[in-house]
């Protein structure tokens, strides 16, 4: 198992898809800040309303007037941008593409044939790939978080880090990491079953989006029985995670939800990989 993890680590070091995904995540963060900068300019009358599609309505202006300086940066904090990274389907889509490429490339290149049947158990092979795909996915998310913080420091300043910010941030990121680890494990399962780039990527994105809609719809029924079904789906839970005032119950429930989805995904993946021929 250790030798397999060492090989996976070496591949990650040489992986273009990891670095490209990291650049994409960074660019999106930059784009978010860029849009806010543009918005701030429009509000202050420095840039014409409607530039680059940024339109500020009278209602928006009234909301901003409540603040002393009338600056967008006073209404939007770092945590709001952090939420956009995790809850705006950005993270789930980038991870879906990244994990699918990493897993499917084993089959498309044929590299898997050099490893299966050479003394390592199939369970160990699948586990090593899952572990590395999940860890590298989390690393991608951490890079995004670092970018949000770095640009936040530049645009908002030190005031953004005041009060209980750091505690809320750590808790929020911790919860998102847990939920996204489970999601990445699910993507590994989908890519292992699909074994083709197109099918793997589209099915993974579908898996992130469609259950959210389905479970939210089913909430109408489940709420009659006293529970919200969608809160047990990792993507919905990630979107609904509060930015502050996170309770111990919410944390515990999140740990359980993540663990269950993670174990189901890895378990099914191991079962499928063990029973299926390698072509």
């Amino acid at each position, binding site marked *: 198992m250790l*030798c397999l993890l060492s090989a996976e680590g070496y*591949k990650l070091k040489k992986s273009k898809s990891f670095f490209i995904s990291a650049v994409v995540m960074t660019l999106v963060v930059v784009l978010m800040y860029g849009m806010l900068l543009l918005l701030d300019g429009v509000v202050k009358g420095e840039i014409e309303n409607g530039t680059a599609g940024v339109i500020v309505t009278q209602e928006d202006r009234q909301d901003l007037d409540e603040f002393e300086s009338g600056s967008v940066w006073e209404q939007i904090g770092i945590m709001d941008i952090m939420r956009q990274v995790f809850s705006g389907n950005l993270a789930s889509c980038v991870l879906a593409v990244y994990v699918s490429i990493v897993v499917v490339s084993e089959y498309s290149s044929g590299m898997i044939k050099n490893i299966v049947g050479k*003394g390592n158990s199939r369970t160990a092979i699948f586990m090593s790939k899952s572990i590395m795909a999940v860890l590298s996915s989390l690393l991608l998310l951490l890079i995004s978080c670092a970018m949000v913080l770095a640009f936040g420091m530049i645009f908002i300043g030190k005031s953004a880090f005041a009060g209980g910010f750091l505690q809320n941030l750590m808790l929020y990121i911790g919860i998102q990491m847990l939920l996204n680890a489970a999601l990445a494990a699910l993507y590994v399962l989908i890519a292992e079953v699909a074994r083709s780039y197109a099918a793997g990527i589209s099915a993974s994105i579908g898996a992130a989006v469609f259950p959210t809609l389905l479970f939210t719809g089913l909430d109408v029924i489940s709420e009659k029985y006293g529970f919200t079904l969608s809160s047990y789906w990792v993507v919905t839970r990630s979107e609904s995670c509060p930015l502050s005032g996170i309770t111990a119950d919410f944390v515990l429930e999140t740990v359980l939800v993540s663990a269950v989805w993670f174990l189901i995904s890895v378990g099914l993946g191991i079962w499928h990989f063990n*029973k299926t021929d390698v072509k």
Partner: protein
Amino acid sequence: MEYVLQTNGLTKIYGRAKVVNEVSMHVKKGSIYGFIGKNGAGKTTFMRMAAGLAAPSAGSMTIFGSSDLEKQRMRIGTLIENPGIYPGMTARDNLEVVRRSLGITEKSRVDEMLSITSLSNAGKKKVKNFSMGMKQRLGIAVSLLRNPDFLILDEPINGLDPAGIKEIRDLLIKLNHEKQITILISSHILGELSKIATDYGIIREGALIEEFGAGELETRCRRCLKLSVEHEHLAAGVLEEQLGIHNYDVPNPGELRVFEHLDDTAEINRVLIQNGVTLRESYLAGQDLEGYFMQLLGNSTGKN
């Protein structure tokens, strides 16, 4: 006889199709076993089962005489279908990934393999820029990384130019002679295969129809006078006593193959008839290896 690979009724079924049908193969230690069959005959599926990439639907096998296949497969190197390599990585990186995956501690093995396969100068070049021959050689380098005792190579000379084919051929002969590596190799280039193989197995529609050695193949393809007679013992006596012919055999009752005096077949026929032999048929036979293989594979283009 010591066998490196021995299968017993090995079968693979996909849906309703029996892709490999009760194949009982015997690969002798130290041999180069040429595995011959048309496209879709079941060669690759059989090799994938032997390599542990696919599970058999029925049948059994032993590797190095043992049924503990997981353990014994550590002594096998494989190149099945295309070389399993990352095109975006260099040759050295590809070998490094496999070295680590297989838990090989000697880092020098990577350089050693690049050297054996004449890829030392291309170690830093990305594989996507490699020629077909270089990719095949890298595939063989990967399969040799753990110093195997048995190599399973599926079409390793596919798509290579004559120079590339010769390189691979020389490499395989060297590995077989110098390192005593047993090789199971499939190829469509039958003439090429006949230059290295010591044993052959013919697979047709999933079934192994015949296994024979290179010596037997030579005999079968040798130019001869085929005689169909009523009493083969009488004919044999005439050949030896009247014509002084000793280089002949009796493959089947009533059938003789004469391998000498082939420039005077009329005289042989005349003497046989004069001595009371009922001669039903007499003709010169013999074909090139490729023609013989094609005949075995069920192709009507075999030359006589």
